[in-house]
């Protein structure tokens, strides 16, 4: 099977490391060497998508399935789109939303699922919650070349609240490919306040690939009492030799800072941890 790729952002082309000048020490680097942009760049244009389905995930979050124009290349799991809406004064409001779905592989028509948490005093998220099937929305993407999964394994995914969205795309893509590496090659630990706050609950609850951690209210009969994520919640998914592991942490800035501390505390090298923070700080 070919790798689902986003045009122009894939390919760990083996580029030479930064030049050393006259015997200067090489500069530190982070992650695999990125892609050198093509001359003139590879601009992604705004496209109009149609809302194909709306699914309520929780009392505050809904998933919009958007139908993209034919021929739109599939995203790489972890990437996001930028959505824009014109204000009545003519200016644009734009915000980023991670893709939740696995890449839509041809011959399936190009679609992406975006899961939007509604902030009542926010500008764009309440608007996206007011859309109906058949409505149109303008977006651009996919973007992101760091918080992406290109087949790395083993992988530990750690998400807090709406931070589960890009991680769901990674997990679903791995499952879509037939769970390469088998049990334990990928695991998602997702932290939510209560069972009612879990996105994709029917899919994630009870999955062998997923651990749900409840911080305030645990479901009846849960073995783990409610409480903040701890290093013990993560340790079972950190291999004895953690060097090969890649960890993806996503959530609010506060969650991301706490969770990355736990991951490093479990023995994972900081260079193996990719972080994406969004939402309240």
């Amino acid at each position: 099977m070919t790798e689902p790729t986003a045009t122009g952002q894939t390919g760990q082309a083996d580029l030479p490391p930064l030049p050393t000048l006259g015997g200067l020490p090489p500069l530190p680097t982070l992650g695999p060497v990125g892609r050198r942009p093509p001359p003139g760049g590879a601009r992604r244009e705004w496209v109009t998508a149609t809302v194909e389905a709306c699914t309520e995930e929780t009392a505050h979050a809904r998933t919009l399935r958007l139908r993209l124009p034919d021929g739109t290349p599939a995203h790489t799991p972890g990437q996001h789109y930028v959505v824009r809406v014109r204000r009545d004064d003519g200016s644009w409001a734009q915000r980023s939303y991670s893709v939740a779905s696995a890449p839509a592989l041809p011959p399936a028509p190009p679609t992406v699922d975006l899961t939007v948490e509604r902030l009542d005093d926010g500008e764009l998220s309440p608007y996206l919650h007011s859309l109906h099937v058949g409505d149109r929305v303008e977006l651009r993407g996919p973007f992101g070349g760091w918080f992406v999964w290109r087949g790395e394994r083993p992988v530990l995914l750690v998400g807090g609240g709406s931070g589960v969205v890009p991680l769901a795309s990674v997990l679903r893509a791995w499952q879509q490919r037939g769970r390469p590496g088998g049990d334990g090659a990928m695991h998602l630990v997702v932290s939510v306040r209560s069972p009612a706050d879990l996105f994709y609950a029917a899919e994630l609850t009870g999955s062998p690939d997923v651990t749900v951690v409840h911080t305030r209210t645990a479901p009846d009969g849960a073995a783990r009492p409610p409480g903040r994520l701890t290093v013990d919640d993560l340790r079972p998914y950190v291999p004895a030799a953690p060097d090969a592991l890649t960890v993806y942490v996503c959530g609010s800035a506060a969650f991301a800072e706490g969770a990355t501390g736990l991951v490093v505390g479990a023995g994972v090298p900081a260079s193996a941890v990719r972080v994406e923070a969004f939402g309240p700080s």
Partner: protein
Amino acid sequence: MSLFSRTARERDPRLPPGQYDAGDTFPVLTAEVVPRIDPSQWSFRIDGLVATTRTWTWDDVHRLPASVYEGDIHCVTTWSKLGTSFGGVSLDTLLAEAGPLPTATHVVAWSSTGYTTNLPLEHVTGGKAWVVWEHEGKPLTTPHGGPVRLLVPHLYFWKSVKWVGGLRLLDHDEPGFWETRGYHELGDPWTEQRYDGD
């Protein structure tokens, strides 16, 4: 369908296109594990195409003439923070001590985390860039790049390297961490140079 703008008044002219006013908030966006850097261990090095490679410690930079930036900052994720301030030292002061060679055209700014970003030399000279350790009169916090970050406020904020460790002067452009991952080479907020090819 269109959005009703939040306020009836005119859009703030300090806001570049596509940006919104984040008000009193200062969002944190980070790609990597936040490093804990003790100021006594921190240093800043300018090397590459310079007359003299120079390294400054925390105490060294505090002995230099202080410089404050008062103005706005713009994040590529579309928030802007208006009327804020940062304190530190002008990069001009540091560059003058190192002496850029005439062949130098670009810089790579780097952090000990391995994060890098590229900038044309003319975008970090002439009062356009700082090395800062204060935000609104208080020590710069670790999530925001403390103890010391780069500040290049006229470009999107990913150019303002957090936990900055140094600058390398080059005779060519060398795309950095985000610039090799789909983001724009320069990142001018006024012409919305957000992504590659914009």
